[in-house]
């Protein structure tokens, strides 16, 4: 099984629709199964039957809602990529807001505005967490500060009367000078 990579637009729309449906089916099936298990009549056999009935009846609906959201989000995202000619987190945030507004358009203008705000804030948090993880993972690849190294080397060279322990911690190119200083003293 290969590492999964996203398709380019416009095939990403179909893939995101399928991925969202799968996520809604399995995730919704898990939660609805637990809820049906809890709300079933007493008895272990009846509880499992209640959980199974809840999964069967509600999991496809949750999957369908997730698929609709993923489909509209991806259509708007690909449209924004095409119009703005760039890919950045603002595309996702605007896509979340616009998709939220579109999908609640039958509930009135106030509901559209509220859902757009919720979608935008949600995608902002998702993109923020993604950028945070990128910064954390990039920190371990950062090189040391050369200006700081030069400052430390200058401190060693300008000092007089150093102990023998400092020779090991000094940079390599300053080693003969420091050794000569110790030899004379």
């Amino acid at each position, binding site marked *: 099984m290969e590492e999964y990579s996203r398709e380019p637009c416009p095939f990403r729309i179909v893939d995101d629709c*399928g991925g969202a449906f*799968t996520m809604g*089916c399995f995730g919704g099936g898990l939660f609805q199964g637990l809820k049906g298990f809890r709300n079933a009549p007493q008895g272990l056999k009846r509880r499992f039957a209640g959980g199974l009935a809840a999964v069967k009846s509600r999991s496809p609906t949750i999957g*369908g809602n997730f*698929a609709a959201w993923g489909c509209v989000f991806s259509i708007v995202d690909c449209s924004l990529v095409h119009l703005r000619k760039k890919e950045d987190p603002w595309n996702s945030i605007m896509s979340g807001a616009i998709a939220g507004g579109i999908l609640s358009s039958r509930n009135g203008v106030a509901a559209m505005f509220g859902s757009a705000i919720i979608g935008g804030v949600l995608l902002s948090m998702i993109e923020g967490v993604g950028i945070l993880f990128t910064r954390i993972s990039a920190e371990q690849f950062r090189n040391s500060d050369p200006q700081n190294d030069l400052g430390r080397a200058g401190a060693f060279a300008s000092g007089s009367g150093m102990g023998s322990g400092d020779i090991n911690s000094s940079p390599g190119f300053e080693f003969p000078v420091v050794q000569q200083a110790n030899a004379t003293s």
Partner: protein
Amino acid sequence: MSDNFSRTPYSDGHAATHEEASKPHYTTTTSSFSRTPVSPYLNYDSRYLQQAQPEFIFPEGANKQRGRFELAFSQIGTSVMIGGGIGGLAGVYNGLKVTKALEQKGKVRRTQLLNHIMKQGSGTANTLGTLTVLYSACGVLLQFFRGEDDHINTVIAGSATGLLYKSTAGLRTCAFGGAIGLGISSLYCLYLIAQENSSNSSPKYL
């Protein structure tokens, strides 16, 4: 190269002697290379670099075709969209029929049409999507446990999908669903085998 000079004939009197001397080379080189002359300013023969087949670069450890997991989301998304389209069209038809029978006009008719389209569209999309999720899940699990990806996986996944979809509707309906899954997947595999035999290409399992 001096060999290239000897292959091209000269118009001088010396060319006759050179041509007679290099005639055995002429006959041996024409069997491997073409007779077109090459530039004497090149320090290599460019005909060595010509190859017929295209070349691809694969990452280390990567196989040369997409597996079942990569295609699962495409299949599920395609099924959901096709189901939504079919259900939407059926909803348009049913909505027009019902609103005409009830003689509704204006905003009420528009609302009823939208209700029919969205309910029937989402219903059919959810059904087809659920079937494809079951099929893809069975296929990916079979590929993972068997370690193979072939037509047998497709047939078993199709049968398992039918069995699972009707698993709580009684034994006879369950067996009927499994038979339908077996039939559809078998027909699809026969179609793939026929296409594979006609085109002689490498098989691509879905």
